C-alpha cells in the first residue's frame, strides 16, 4: 500500500489571494533592513577577515599561531628532539638540529612551519617534552596568496625569526627537565 500524507493547506483569504497586501508586508521587512543598514553601516555584523579579527574568547587563544618559548638568555627552549615534527599529522614542521656550545643539548638550527599545511590540531604542543612550542600567541593566521612568502610579509611561512619570541609581559617559564638543567648550567656559568 502506498503511504500518503495529507497536507492541511491554509486557505488564503481575499486579501492574501490578491498578493498585493502580502507583498507590501514583505517589502516593509526587507526595506527596514535595507535602510537601517544603509544609514547605519556599523550595524552590519560582518567582520572583514583577515584585516579585522574578533577578540578570541576563553581558551580559544590556546589554538592560535605557534611560537617557541625562550630561556633567560634568549636561547630557545627547544632541544630539537623532533617530537613535534614526528607527531605532526600534516608534516608541516621542518627541523634541522645542531649542537650547542655547551655540548649538553641540541638546538634547532632551522625550524620552519608551513602554515598553509598546518591543521591547528595542537598535537605538537602536547608532544613537546620541553614545553617549548606553544600556540598561545592569540594571533590568527590570515589568508594569503603566497604560502612560501615569509609570514611577516603577508605569506604563510614561519621561520626561526618569527617563531622564537616572548609574549609581551611574559615571565620566563622554567618548567621542563632539560630546561631546568640548562637554566642551572647557565646560572653556574655566571657564577
Amino acid at each position, binding site marked *: 500500500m502506498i503511504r500518503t500524507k495529507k497536507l492541511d493547506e491554509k486557505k488564503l483569504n481575499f486579501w492574501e489571494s490578491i498578493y*498585493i497586501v502580502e*507583498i507590501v508586508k*514583505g*517589502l516593509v*521587512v*526587507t*526595506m527596514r*533592513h*535595507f535602510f537601517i*543598514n*544603509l544609514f547605519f553601516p556599523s*550595524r*552590519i*555584523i*560582518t567582520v*572583514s577577515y583577515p584585516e579585522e579579527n574578533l577578540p578570541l574568547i576563553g581558551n580559544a587563544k590556546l589554538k592560535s599561531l605557534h611560537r617557541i618559548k625562550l630561556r633567560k638568555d634568549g636561547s630557545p627552549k627547544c632541544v630539537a628532539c623532533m617530537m613535534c615534527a614526528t607527531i605532526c599529522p600534516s608534516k608541516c614542521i621542518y627541523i634541522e638540529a645542531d649542537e650547542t656550545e655547551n655540548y649538553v643539548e641540541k638546538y634547532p638550527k632551522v625550524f620552519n612551519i608551513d602554515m598553509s599545511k598546518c591543521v591547528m590540531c595542537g598535537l605538537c604542543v602536547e608532544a613537546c617534552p620541553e614545553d617549548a612550542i606553544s600556540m598561545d600567541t592569540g594571533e590568527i593566521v590570515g589568508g594569503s596568496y603566497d604560502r612560501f612568502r615569509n609570514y611577516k610579509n603577508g605569506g604563510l611561512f614561519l621561520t626561526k625569526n618569527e617563531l622564537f619570541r616572548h609574549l609581551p609581559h611574559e615571565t620566563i617559564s622554567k618548567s621542563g627537565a632539560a630546561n631546568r638543567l640548562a637554566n642551572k648550567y647557565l646560572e653556574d656559568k655566571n657564577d
Partner: protein
Amino acid sequence: MSLDIIKSDLIQYFIIYKPQIFYLIETFVKIGILYGAVMTLAGVLTVGERKLSALMQDRVGPNRAYILGFTLWGLFHVVADGIKMIMKEDFMPKNANKILFTLAPIISLVPILFVFAFIPFGNYINIFGYTARFEIIDSNLSVFLIFAFSSLAVYGAFLAGFTSGNNWGLLGSIRAQAQMISYEVVMVLSILPVIMIYSSPSLSGIISAQGENISGFIPKWGIILQPLSFLIFFTAALVESKRAPFDVVEGESEIIGYFVEHSSMRFAGFMFGEYIEIVLFSMLISIFFFGGWQVPYLSDSGFTLGNISIPVNHYIKVILELLSISVKTVIFSCIFIFIRWTLPRFRYDHITKLCWNYLMPISVLNLVVTAFFVRAF
C-alpha cells in the same frame, strides 16, 4: 580640376545639405548620450543588485576588487566581472546548431537595445537657434513599435534552449515561451487604456499630455488616472524580464535555464540583456505612469502653480527634465531588485493562472470601463 573648385563644391554641398548634416550629428550625439547612459546603468546594476541584496540581508556585499588600492564601494567589480567573462572558456556543445546557438544571445540583446531608439528621454533643447528633440526615432506609433520589438526578445530565449542540444535548456526555453508570450498580451492590454486616456499612440504625445494638471495642482500622471494598469504592467514587466518572483525559466535549483550551455561572453549577453531589460521597463513605467521627463508644474515659462510662477532658465529646465527621467528610471530599477530579493518564486501553474484567470480579465475590464469613461466625458 583644381582644389579651389573642389573646395567651392564642398561648400556648396554643405549649404545645400546643411539640415541633413546637422541632423546626422544630432542623431549621433543623442545615440551616444542615451546608449551610454543605458549601458552604464545596466553595468552598474549588475554589481548594484549584489550590493542592494547584501544590504537587505545584513551583509556587506562585494567590496574586494580594487585598482591602485581604491575599492570605490565595490564598483570595480563591474570591470572584474567583465574581464572574468571574457577570459572564460567559450564552450560549444557537440549537439548544438552552431549558427543559431551563436545567434541566440545576439537576438536576445539587440531588439531590447533597439527599443531605446523610440524612447524620448527629454523634451527639447535650443542651442543657438538650433532645436533638437531628445528622441532618436520620432514615430507616431512608437508605443506599438516598442512592444513589437521587445517581444522579439523571446526568440533569443527560445533559440538558446532549443539549439543547445540540452534537455534542461529545452525545458527552460519552453517555460520562457509560455510565460513571456502570455504576459505580452496582458502587457499590451494594460497599456491600451493609457493610450486611450492621453489619446496618442506615441510616447512623446503621452508624455506631453502628462504635463497638465488635474484640478490645478495634481499632476495628470498615469499612476493617478490608471493605478490598475500600473499594477498589471509592472507585474507583466517583472515576468518579461524573467526575474524572481517569476524566474521559473531559470529556476537555479531544478533546471539552470535556457542558457545552460552558454558560457563566457555568450552567457554575458543573456545576463546583460536581462539588466538592460530592467532599465527598459523602468523607463517605460516612468514614461507611461510617472510622466517621463515631466517635472511637476514645470513648463516653458518656468514653475507655475495657480497664480505663483517662478521663471527658469532654458538650460536649467533641460537639465531638470533629463534628471527627472533618470531618477525615475534608477528608482524603478531599484524597485525591480527589491522585489526580486523579497518574494519567493511562483509555481509554474500559478504564473499561468495569474495571467489568464486574473490579470487578463481585469485588464480587459479596465479597458472597457476606461473606454466608457473616455467616450462619456
